[in-house]
């Protein structure tokens, strides 16, 4: 005799944890199944945690969650081979009682989050991979099979929070195979430094303040991609990611890209003498709004990365995972409360709730961006170099008069893109993509 649950959640990342937490809190009988030895064992993120999405689930998280530093300063750097042009924003306003962004280490964070899910009453098993969805004769999803001996496990609804490369959904035909143009490959290192070194090098006051650096330009070697550097308490997270299709085309190994980034003259001094503790690679969904698959059907729903929920323009993913997980969980809980079935028609409420939220609004806003960047890679190479040249012309003091310098800067800029018309259309494309 096999057991029956109200809901089975696949995966214990932020999406699965949020869905399971909400449903367990609503009194549903929830089983959560995670492939890793522990929750978070293999999960990868930069990682910036956006407080708001988590606060809606666990209001008191700041007192309990393993957080590294709250972000007081944001830097955006345009890199060419030897220089960076940057914009920094730092504000003491970010030293507030309830900071908005934190750096975290996913392995420890996910374990904490998963423990909260257990506390809420969900049954959780790890080191177990869901292999198949089980359907009845009518095609309705009624449970899952795992890689362990034993009978299938049954539930009214299966919530797939299995991450970007969700094979269960793919095998069951509820979501398409990943398109290399719709996913980035990111590699990341965690580099150990003493707390004092982190604070000195990034101008931080104490063990709680942190800095975020996003980099664009030569780090992606002409591919569509970006790099990042985040400060943790006693380490630096540093990584770079580009579209998988670009990696396939250029044949540049990802670790070469990362090594180059680490040896860039603007970055090398920040990580000097650090000891690399961890090297990881992971995929990031980048397809945006148009790549979102069907989100629910008879007895199933998809949350988080498995549903392509990443806003790459703003580097948001975990918050979308938490929000989609929460909304799916709330939908199922409401259906249960009302005595309604988790069938295709009723689960559409989940998509509806998403459309009302920032999740779909934001992804819709940037739906053109992936296409524009893909078709206009020079945006990430020509401009950083032109800007760097212009800065040098402007800053070097010599016997050239200022008006001539301005003229030279303008012509360098024009030359970088082969004429003003191209600069104009680039600006237009970016503006439309951003609108």
């Amino acid at each position, binding site marked *: 005799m096999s057991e029956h649950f109200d809901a089975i959640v696949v995966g214990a990342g932020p999406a699965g944890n949020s869905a399971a937490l909400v449903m367990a809190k609503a009194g549903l009988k929830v089983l959560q199944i995670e492939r890793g030895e522990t929750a978070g064992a293999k999960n990868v993120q930069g990682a910036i945690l956006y407080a708001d999405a988590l606060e809606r689930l666990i209001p008191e998280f700041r007192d309990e969650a393993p957080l590294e530093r709250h972000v007081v300063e944001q830097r955006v750097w345009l890199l060419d081979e030897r220089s960076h042009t940057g914009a920094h924003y730092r504000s003491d306003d970010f030293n507030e009682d309830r900071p908005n962004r934190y750096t975290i280490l996913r392995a420890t964070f996910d374990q904490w989050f998963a423990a909260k899910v257990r506390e809420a009453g969900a049954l959780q*098993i790890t080191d177990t991979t869901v292999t198949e969805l089980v359907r009845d004769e009518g095609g309705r999803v009624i449970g899952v099979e795992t890689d362990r001996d*034993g*009978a299938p496990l049954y539930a009214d609804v299966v919530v797939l929070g299995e991450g970007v490369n969700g094979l269960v959904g793919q095998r069951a035909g509820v979501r398409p195979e990943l398109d290399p143009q719709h996913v980035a490959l990111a590699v990341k290192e965690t580099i150990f430094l003493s707390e004092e070194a982190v604070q000195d090098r990034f101008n931080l006051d104490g063990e709680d303040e942190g800095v975020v650096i996003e980099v664009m330009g030569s780090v992606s070697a002409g591919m569509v991609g970006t790099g990042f550097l985040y400060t943790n308490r006693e380490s630096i997270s540093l990584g770079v990611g580009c579209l998988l299709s670009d990696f396939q085309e250029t044949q540049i190994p990802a670790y070469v890209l990362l090594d180059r980034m680490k040896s860039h003259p603007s970055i090398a001094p920040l990580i000097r003498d650090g000891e690399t503790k961890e090297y990881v690679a992971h995929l990031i969904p980048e397809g945006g709004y148009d790549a979102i698959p069907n989100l629910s059907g008879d007895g199933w729903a998809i949350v988080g990365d498995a549903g392509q929920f990443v806003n790459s323009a703003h580097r948001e993913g975990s918050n979308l995972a938490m929000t989609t997980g929460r909304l799916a969980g709330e939908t199922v809980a409401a259906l249960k409360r009302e005595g309604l079935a988790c069938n295709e028609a009723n689960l559409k409420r989940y998509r509806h709730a998403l459309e009302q939220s920032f999740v779909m609004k934001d992804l819709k806003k940037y739906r053109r961006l992936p296409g524009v960047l893909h078709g206009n890679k020079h945006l990430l190479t020509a401009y950083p170099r032109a800007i760097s040249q212009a800065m040098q012309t402007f800053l070097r003091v010599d016997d050239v008069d200022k008006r001539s310098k301005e003229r030279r800067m303008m012509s360098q800029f024009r030359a970088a893109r082969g004429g003003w018309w191209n600069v104009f259309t680039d600006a237009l494309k970016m503006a439309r993509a951003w609108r």
Partner: protein
Amino acid sequence: MDAVFDHDTDPEDPGRRGLNLVVCIKQVPDSAQIRVHPVTNTIMRQGVPTIINPYDLFALEEAMRLRDQYGGEVTVLSMGPPMAEEALRRALGLGADKAVLITDRRFAGADTLATSYALASALAKLGAERPIDVVFTGKQTIDGDTAQVGPGVARRLGLNQLTYVAAIDLLDRATGEIVVRRRAEGGLQVLSSRLPCLVTVLEGVNEIRRGSIEDMLRAARAEVTVWSAADAGIEDPQQCGLKGSPTLVKRVFAPTPREESAEMVAVDGKRPAQIADAVLDLVFAHAPKLETELGAAPSEKERR
């Protein structure tokens, strides 16, 4: 303490329900992932995942095989901080039937002497509830490497100890006899002992099973019994933890890393024998002494 292992006085199990086996396990940091702090030279345990001491898994599997063969139940017992409950739960997921954690502030800083005292007390208590047939431990732990706790427990409980056991050949409940093979220097010993006894299991003698989905669900639901020092029947707190530990750690230091002297070499040759010869030539070029030593030994053929 001997009497608690006496089956004949067991009111609950006059007809012998099956074996009562207890496996002592320890939660240890995954040594493959430990780093030494580059500045302070201390071991960084933070964020290092924990595992069940790998040697203990061989003991657990051996115990579960006996259970599967003769019936009965396997209890896992651990002394450790509250988070060691995780290791016990993992053991339940692997197929153990019951789990007991003894945890107390007073246990902190225990060396092997104090640890064996606490474990022996808990075993005596368990044995009073229902007589134990065999106590199992791993050969040693990967974080201490002493191999003293098992023998210490046996001594305290007055049990025969069978260490470095590679196989259990026989367990006869009627005659109360166990026969094991023990790896010793220079060969295998076949030893027989009366029950109850303590067995420390060698590595590599079996492969830990993967629990079924039912095991996992049972483990997720199971209540791990948590005992304080007092609950475990510990009479003398002076013998626990740091107080009961005569061992002094004089100094902790990071070993200087060995110089990497590996070298990639390309050798010519198509047939395996040719390649082997080429490799040997290279090895001998590096270590001329080796050649004379090996040359002195008779080859396989010559010996025959």
